C-alpha cells in the first residue's frame, strides 16, 4: 500500500517538474533576456506562455506536500526539520515570484515593470535551486529518520545538493525553452521561435553535461541512489538519455512538436528514476517507505483522492491546456505590457 502512495507522490513530483518547472524556467529566460528594450519580445512570449497556466501548475506542489505529510508524516517532519533553510527560501521565493508576476502584468511604468520583473525572474531561479538541493539532501541520505533533525547546513550544502540545485535550474530552463519555441510559433513570432530554439539547444547540451558529471558526484556522495540508478532504474536512465539526445536532434532539425514531447520524456524518466533508485526507502538508507507510512485507511484516502483527481482534474487541466494552446485564452488579459516598454 505504501508503494502505491509512493508512486502517486512521484507522479505529483514529476508533474510539478514538467509543468511547474517549465514556469520557473520561463522566469530564467525572463531574467536573462537583457534590458527593457532588447528583452521585450522574449518577455512577451514568457508572459503569454505562463500567464493562464502557472497557478494550475503550481497546485502540483501543494499536492506533493500534502501527499508527503499525510502519507509519510514522520519522513515529512524529518525533512522540514532538517531542511528548514532551503525550504524557507523556496517558500519566500514562491511568494515573490507569484505576486510579482501578477503585479507586473498590471503596472504600466517601465521602472515598476523592471522591479517586479527582476523579483519574478530572480525568484524563478532561487526556487528550483532550493527544491533541487532538497532532493539532493534526501537522495544522499542526509535527512535522518523518525522526525529528527539533521545538520541544518551541511544537509543541503554538499555535492549532491549542489548537483540537484544546478540540475533543477538547468532542467527548468531547458523545458521552458523547448516549450516556448512552440509558444512563440503559436503567437506567430518567427524571430522568437529561433531565439528560443537556440537556447533550447544550448540548455539541452548543458543539462546533458551536468547530468553526465552528476553520475560521478552521486558515485562519491550518494552511493545508494547511484547503485539504484545503475540497476533498478537503469532502463529509465537509458530512456531519459535517448529522449534527451533525440529531442536535441529534432530541435536541430526544427521539428519542434516532437522535440517538446521527447524533452518531457527525458525529464519525466529521470525524475521518476530518482524515485525508483531510492526504493524502498523514502529517506535512504535509514527509513523505508513502509516504516514511514501512515495507517492503511489514510493511504486509501490518498488513493481515492488521486483517483478523483484523475477523473475530474486531469480532464479539466486538459481543457485548460487545450483552450490555451488553441489561443482561446490569454490575449485579453494582458493589455499593458506594450505601453510600458515603448515609453522606455
Amino acid at each position, binding site marked *: 500500500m505504501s508503494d502505491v502512495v509512493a508512486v502517486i507522490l512521484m507522479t505529483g513530483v514529476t508533474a510539478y517538474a514538467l509543468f511547474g518547472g517549465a514556469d520557473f524556467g520561463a522566469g530564467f529566460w525572463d531574467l536573462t533576456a537583457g534590458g527593457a*528594450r532588447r528583452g521585450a519580445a522574449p518577455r*512577451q512570449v514568457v508572459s503569454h506562455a505562463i500567464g493562464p497556466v502557472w*497557478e*494550475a501548475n*503550481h*497546485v502540483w*506542489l*501543494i*499536492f506533493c*506536500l*500534502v*501527499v508527503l*505529510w*499525510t502519507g509519510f*508524516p514522520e519522513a*515529512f*517532519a*524529518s525533512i*522540514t*526539520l532538517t531542511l*528548514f*533553510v532551503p525550504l*524557507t527560501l523556496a517558500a519566500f521565493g*514562491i*511568494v*515573490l*515570484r*507569484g*505576486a510579482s508576476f*501578477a*503585479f507586473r502584468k*498590471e*503596472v504600466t511604468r517601465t521602472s515598476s515593470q523592471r522591479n517586479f520583473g527582476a523579483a519574478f525572474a530572480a525568484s524563478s531561479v532561487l526556487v528550483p535551486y532550493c527544491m533541487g538541493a532538497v532532493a539532493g539532501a534526501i537522495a544522499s541520505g542526509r535527512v535522518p529518520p523518525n*522526525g529528527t533533525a539533521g545538520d*541544518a*547546513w*551541511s544537509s543541503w550544502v554538499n555535492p549532491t545538493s549542489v548537483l540537484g540545485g544546478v540540475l533543477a535550474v538547468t532542467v527548468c530552463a531547458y523545458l521552458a525553452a523547448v516549450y516556448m519555441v512552440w509558444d512563440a510559433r503559436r503567437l506567430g*513570432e518567427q524571430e522568437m521561435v529561433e531565439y528560443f530554439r537556440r537556447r533550447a539547444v544550448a540548455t539541452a547540451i548543458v543539462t546533458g553535461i551536468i547530468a553526465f558529471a552528476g553520475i560521478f558526484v552521486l558515485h562519491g556522495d550518494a552511493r545508494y541512489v547511484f547503485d539504484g540508478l545503475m540497476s533498478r532504474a537503469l532502463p529509465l536512465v537509458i530512456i531519459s538519455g535517448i529522449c534527451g539526445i533525440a529531442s536535441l536532434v529534432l530541435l536541430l532539425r526544427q521539428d519542434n512538436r516532437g522535440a517538446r514531447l521527447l524533452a518531457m520524456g527525458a525529464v519525466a524518466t529521470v525524475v521518476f528514476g530518482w524515485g525508483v533508485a531510492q526504493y524502498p526507502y523514502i529517506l535512504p538508507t535509514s527509513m523505508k517507505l513502509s516504516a514511514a507510512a*501512515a*495507517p492503511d*485507511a*489514510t493511504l*486509501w484516502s490518498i488513493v481515492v*483522492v488521486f483517483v*478523483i*483527481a484523475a477523473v*475530474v482534474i486531469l480532464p479539466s487541466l486538459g*481543457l*485548460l491546456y487545450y*483552450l490555451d494552446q488553441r489561443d*482561446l*485564452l490569454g*490575449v*485579453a*488579459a*494582458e*493589455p*499593458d505590457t*506594450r505601453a510600458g516598454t*515603448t515609453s522606455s
Partner: protein
Amino acid sequence: MGNVLTSVLAVNPVPWARSQMAFTLAFHIVLVPLGVAWGFITLVANYRALKHDDADALLLAQRWSKYMAVTFAVGAVTGTVLTFEFGLLWPRFMGRFGDAFGIPFAIEGLFFFLEAIFLAVYIYGWKRLKPWPHFWAGVPIVIAGIGGTASVVAANAWMNEPSGFTMNAAGKIVDVDPWGVIFNKAMPLQTIHMLIAAYLVGGFLVASVYAAAMLRGRRDRYHRIGFLIPFTVAAVAMPFQMLVGDELARWVYNNEPVKFAAIEMVPKTSSDVPETLFGYLNSSGQVEGGIPIPGLASWLSDPADGTSTVIQGLDTVPASQRPTNAEVSVVHLAWDVMIGMATLLFLLSLWYFAAWVFKRRLPKSRMFLVVAAAAGVLSVVALEAGWVVTEVGRQPWIVRNLMKVEQAATGNTEVWITFVAVLLIYAVVGVTLVLVLRLMSRRWREGELDDRGGPYEPRGGVPPREPAGIS
C-alpha cells in the same frame, strides 16, 4: 560559519513560530473571502449582463475578474507559504498527526486545482469563448470555493475537536477513520460560519469600494450596480450569520467549555454570570474593568434555564491546560469586537432592506454610504477577531487535550529571522497589492480601454496583439 551563526542567534523558536503562523494566517485570511465569494459575486453580474443585456454589469464582471486574477495569485502563494509552514514551524505536530490532519488537506488540494484551472479559463476567456460557456466556466470556481473552505475548516475544526483515529500507548496513531476526521463534531457549524463569513467579507469589501466612489459623487448606474450586487449578497448573508454564530457559541458552551470560559471571561464556575463588555482578566485572574450586564452570559448560554444556567469556569482545569490570563483577555476582547462589528453590519443590512421594502430604492442618507464604505474594513476586523477567538481560545493546545503548541514547534532557532523576513516581504506584497488594485481602477476610470475591443467577439474577430510595435 553555520555553527557560529547558530550559537549567536540561538533564540527560543516557539514564540516566533507562533507569531509567524499568526501573522501569515491573518494576512491570508483577508484574501480568502475574495477567492471564495468574489467569484460568485462576479457571476451574478455576468448572469445579469447576459440575461438582461446589461452593459454596465458586463463591464463590472470583466473588471472584477481581472482584480480577482491579482488577488487570487497573491492568495495562492500566501496559501502555499502556510502549507510550508505546517512542516517548517510545526514539524512535530505533522509528524505525529499528519496521517489524520492531512486528509482534509488532500481533499482541499482537489478543490484548489479546480479553482485554479477554471479561474484561469474564466479570467482569460472573456475574449474568445462564447458567452454562456464562458459563464459556466465560472461556476466551478464557486463550487471549489465552497469545497475548499469546507476542507480547510474541517482541518481546523479537527484541532479543536480531534477525532477519527486510534492511538497506541506511545501516542502514535495506529488507525484512522477518514470520515471521522473530516466530519468531526466541530466541523459542520465552523464550516458554515466561515463560509458565510467569506461571503460577508467578500460582499462588504467589494461594495465598500463603490460606496466610497458614490460618496465622491460617482453615482452613475455603473457604480450603483457595482455597489448593489455585492452589498445585497452580504446583506442577505448577514442575518444567517447571526443565527449560525449564536448556534456555534452555544455549541462551544457545550463542547469546549474552557474556550467558552475564556470568551465570557469566567474565572470560577457559577450561575448568573454577567456579560462583561470589554474589561480584562488581571494577573491574579480576576475580572477588572468593563461594563457587566447582569446574568446575560448565563441567559444567552441557555435561554431555557435563563440566568440560572451554570457556566464552567477557567479554574476547572489546571493553569497549564488553559489559556493564560492575558490570552483570556485577548479572546474576550476579540469576541466583543466580533459581536460588535457583526451587530453594526446587521443593523446596516436592516437599514438597506427597510429602504428597499418601503421605498424601493437605496437609502438616500449620506450616512448610509459612509457606514457602507467602512463596512468592508469592519467586516475584515470581525473576521480576524473571530479567528483570534477560535485560535487563542484553544491555547495552549495545538490539538486540543493531546498536544501543546510548544511540543509541536520546530527546534530551529532561526525562526525569528524568518519571522522578520516574512514581515518585510508580506508588508511589501500587501502594500503593493493595494497600490496595484488602485492603479488598475484609476486606469480604467481615466477611460483607457480595458482591452482591445469588447468581450465575446466572434473567433478571429480580434487579431492577436501585434508585438511588432515593441521594439
